[in-house]
């Protein structure tokens, strides 16, 4: 064996050993170092790491995962059926426990389902529908319920399976198909009621406006009548005063002229008048000039 051959051979062996004892861990994974099957340690730090060549490295995705199964039906305390779709945000937290108790992701999801969904149906069964769906914000309990379930199931999952449950949330709230028709019927009835209310309120407002206008008109006209009659009265009074002032200076002459004026009006061509020959007018005619005295 030449020196060169020895050199090359040792380089080759060195490479083989290095490839057996050096390994990389990416940012997305954990490495679990096992020695003849027995977990020795967990490496969470990404980068280049070393191990003994007789140890092996198992990699686990440590990223956040979403478990989003089909919706399930729950019964609330007030016996209402609800179809709720939940999702769970979870991660592998302790690879050593995970590999020993669960092994792979599908069975991890089954365990999660068992832990969480039993908690959910218990929790929803303890609440009225109001605490999930209500116009009164104070009544809503969904966040508190889910937070409690997240906390308790997280503890259990970590202890038993090495999983971390970051969040349990409601993705969708709905009703079972068979209940929907009832809701639609109720919605239609409600709409009908609201439509009627709109119409009635419109009528009410319109009537009020019309009545107000009528009243205003009556007020305006009667006030105007009052004022105009007052004005007319004042005019008449003033005229009367003027006449009175004038005529009272010579009542005799007034009586004469006014009476004669009346004759002009009272006596027309349909009137027959019988005059005595003795009258002042005819005296001169019948008795001669002497009667003029």
């Amino acid at each position, binding site marked *: 064996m030449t020196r060169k051959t020895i050199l090359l051979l040792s380089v080759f062996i060195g490479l083989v050993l290095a490839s057996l004892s050096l390994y*990389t*861990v*990416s*940012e997305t994974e954990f490495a679990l170092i096992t020695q003849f099957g027995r977990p020795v340690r967990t490496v969470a730090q*990404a980068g*280049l790491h070393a191990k003994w060549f007789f140890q092996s490295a198992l990699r686990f*995705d440590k990223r*956040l*995962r979403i478990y989003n199964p089909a919706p399930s039906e729950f019964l609330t305390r007030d016996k209402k059926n609800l179809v709720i779709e939940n999702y769970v*945000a979870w991660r592998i937290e302790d690879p050593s426990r995970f590999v020993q108790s669960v092994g792979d992701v599908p069975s991890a999801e089954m365990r999660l389902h068992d832990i969480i969904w039993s908690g959910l149906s218990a929790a929803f069964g303890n609440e009225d529908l109001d605490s*999930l*769906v*209500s*116009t009164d914000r104070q009544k*809503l309990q*969904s966040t508190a319920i889910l937070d409690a379930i997240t906390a308790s199931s997280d503890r259990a999952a970590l202890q038993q399976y090495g999983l971390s449950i970051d*969040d349990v949330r*409601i*993705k969708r709230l709905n009703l079972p198909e068979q209940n929907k028709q009832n809701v*639609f019927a109720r919605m*239609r009835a409600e*709409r009908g009621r609201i*439509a*009627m209310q709109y*119409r009635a*309120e*419109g*009528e009410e*407002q*319109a009537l009020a*406006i*019309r009545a*107000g*206008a009528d009243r*205003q008109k009556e007020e*305006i006209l009667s006030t*105007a009548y009052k004022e*105009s009659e*007052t*004005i*007319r009265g004042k*005019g008449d009074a003033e*005229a009367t005063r003027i006449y009175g002032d*004038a*005529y009272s*200076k*010579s009542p005799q*002459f007034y009586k*004469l*002229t006014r009476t004669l004026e009346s*004759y*002009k009006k009272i006596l*027309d061509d349909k*009137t*027959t*008048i*019988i005059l*005595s*020959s003795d009258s002042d*007018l005819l005296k001169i005619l019948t008795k001669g000039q002497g009667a003029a005295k």
Partner: protein
Amino acid sequence: MSILISPPVPMAASVEPASPPQSRRFRQIVSYIFALWLISGVYIVQTDQQGLVTQWGRVVEPRVFPGIHYALPWPIDKVYKLKVRELRRRVVGGEIPDTVLGRPASSSEFFSGDQNLLNIRVVAQYSVSNPRDFLFAAQSPDQIVGLAVESELVRRVAHTRVDDILTTQKLAIQSDVLRSAQTVVDSYRTGALLASINIESVSPPPETAEAFRGVAGARSDAFRIVNEADGYANDLVPRARGQADQLLDQAHSYSSGKINRAQGDASHFNAVAAEYSKSPNVTSTRVYLEAMELVLPRLKKLIVDANSNLDLSMIGKQDNSAAPATGPGTEGAPQR
């Protein structure tokens, strides 16, 4: 490997200056390859991108800005490039069915606070705020953003009345969901930043659409009725005001007419009365006679003697004759 198999050369000749041309050529090739390998670490980050470099899997450069850069070549360093500013779209409610994965179209039904069902479709837009988290913290950040928005929308809608969702609360819902969904996304450390939540469509279920339209119709009917009443009032009141003005004007003109006429009459009377007072007898006689001249020609007249009896039967017979007769009676006015 050829060098291993090649026949051993004498020890004296094995040192560099005397290396055979074959070996030198090999070294040349190796050094070229090595140089090429080193050069392959040069990379360019485009204007709309940000880069991230990992070394043996560990992040060493969390943010590399646009430009030309160098990283150690494969397999040591690895370069990721992300379009960080690009707005990514995520539809919530009524997604198109995924035929490849055989997933059915997700329902767009939401349950409102007053227990009505509504179809809502929301589009969320987000960008990458932290490339490191976006790449490594979650398996599917895109799905997580969608779920966060959806769950917050469900929660928000669950305490809002259906009418508010359909009308006034739309904008409030959008901004509330934007804020709370961002909190959720942040709690998952997904490195995504929500840019907008937009309610694309919100409608009652088809089974109740007719009834909802009925409400809209009723509302416009009510508006119409009220408008008509307003029209009536707007017509009536000004008209009444006009009539009132007219009444007052008439009253004023009546009153001033009366007064003027009275003043005229009075001054007429005063003037004549002043003359009368100078010679009352003559004036009264004159006035009397003038009046008689005016009055008597129109009349049917019977003149009777002051002392004779009057036979009234003749009045009926002689209708239009003015018979000269004698008789008493000053004046009388039997008709016809």
